[in-house]
């Protein structure tokens, strides 16, 4: 099974613009991308829908990480996933060019929050995306007992269409 992520250029641009805004105290911004899922033969398509930023007041002061979400940010995201039966992807950016990579802290935090989302919407899968200025990498979890899987490919739907392999 391979995982393919599709997002419109307009949505991806708006995510990048939002994540570049400075925060009053956090070093970076984070948000969530919602997506619909679909089977495509053996593979799974992840089709992005909407972006929601984590609100300024929902960040915690934690100098050991770039950004730390508070419980209220997680609660709102869980509510969103549950009500709309969505796949949710935590998103942040490392900037720069080329294929970005998750940091050790990113991987640790992803492993913590994905099982919580699977509890409220076990029919969906959830994960995380890290962006650069011209690419992205991601992972998806669908079973709390198993580690997240890497997203194999990304497609940015605009004119021209951009595709890249990410795993």
């Amino acid at each position, binding site marked *: 099974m391979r995982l393919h992520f599709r997002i419109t250029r307009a949505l991806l641009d708006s995510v990048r613009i939002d994540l570049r805004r400075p925060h009053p105290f956090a070093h970076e911004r984070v948000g969530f991308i919602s997506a619909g*899922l679909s089977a495509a*033969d053996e593979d799974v398509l992840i089709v992005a829908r909407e972006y929601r930023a984590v609100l300024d007041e929902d960040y915690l002061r934690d100098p050991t990480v770039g950004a730390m979400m508070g419980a209220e940010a997680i609660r709102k995201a869980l509510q969103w996933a549950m009500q709309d039966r969505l796949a949710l992807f935590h998103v942040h950016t490392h900037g720069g060019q080329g294929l970005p990579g998750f940091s050790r802290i990113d991987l640790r935090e992803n492993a913590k929050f994905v099982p919580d989302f699977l509890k409220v919407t076990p029919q969906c899968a959830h994960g995380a995306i890290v962006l650069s200025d011209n690419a992205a990498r991601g992972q998806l979890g669908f079973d709390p007992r198993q580690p997240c899987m890497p997203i194999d490919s990304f497609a940015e739907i605009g004119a021209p269409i951009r595709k890249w392999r990410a795993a």
Partner: protein
Amino acid sequence: MNRLQRQSFLGEGSEATLSTATIGIAGLGGGGSHAAQQFAHMGIGGYIPADPQCIDVTNTNRLIGGTLSDVKKGKAKVYITERLIRGLQPRARIHAVKGSWQAATELLKQCDLIIGAVDSFKEREQLERFARRYLIAYIDIGMDVHEIDHKAFLISGQVILSMPGCPCLRCCGLLTDERLEGEAKQYGAAGSRPQVVWPNGVLASTAVGLAAQLLTPWFPRPPEFTYLEYDGNKGTVSVSARVELLKGSICPHHPPDETGDPFFDIREHMKRQGKAGAGPRMRRWRSWLRGLTGRWEP
């Protein structure tokens, strides 16, 4: 010597880009067969052609690749298209579907682009809705011959590039409730509509040009939406006045929260897979089997 060297201006890596691209073609009559031929010339690597019909003698005035021998054998249009493509791209990834495009949705979801060369407004609407649901670029082509007076005819047609988030066929006024209702009332009553080869060629070439702009970097700022009108009497293709009117507008007919399959359940999908992450050996075997069955011709 490389077969595609004279199109190297399409951009660095364009040959690889085209080779990895997959294009769905719904309808393989005059428009779809023309488009398939040109995609094969261009070096597109993957094809999902779908059409339920077999060639008949009245198709031979426009069906590219179709022969009188095919008529005698009652050959399916998808296999004529497959033969046409393989003559230029022997190793192309072709999953020919002898059936309506609705029978090929699992395969069409994986396409980078879908060309709609279908006859009815209803099918156009369904196909565009499908493409929007899975964020797939859609290019619609269509032509018609109207009798405007006794023995006077008007040939018209359109090519519309419909990208997710951008204006759609309804925004363009091509699809309206009146047209859909009118078509539904006439269902089964109409005889075969007049069709000729050259307008199909113009429209298919225009669509293939748009596809080249979407897939390769040769054109600096390709449009994300366009509506091109064909006047077959004058022999012109021009940008519809609606393009300017719709500039910057967001399509209200296909909201982004409709993407994906509302009934998808990852647990069921994994069950169908047998076990999580079938190994690469199994994937290769399944892929080989799919390729074999896709090429199988009754």
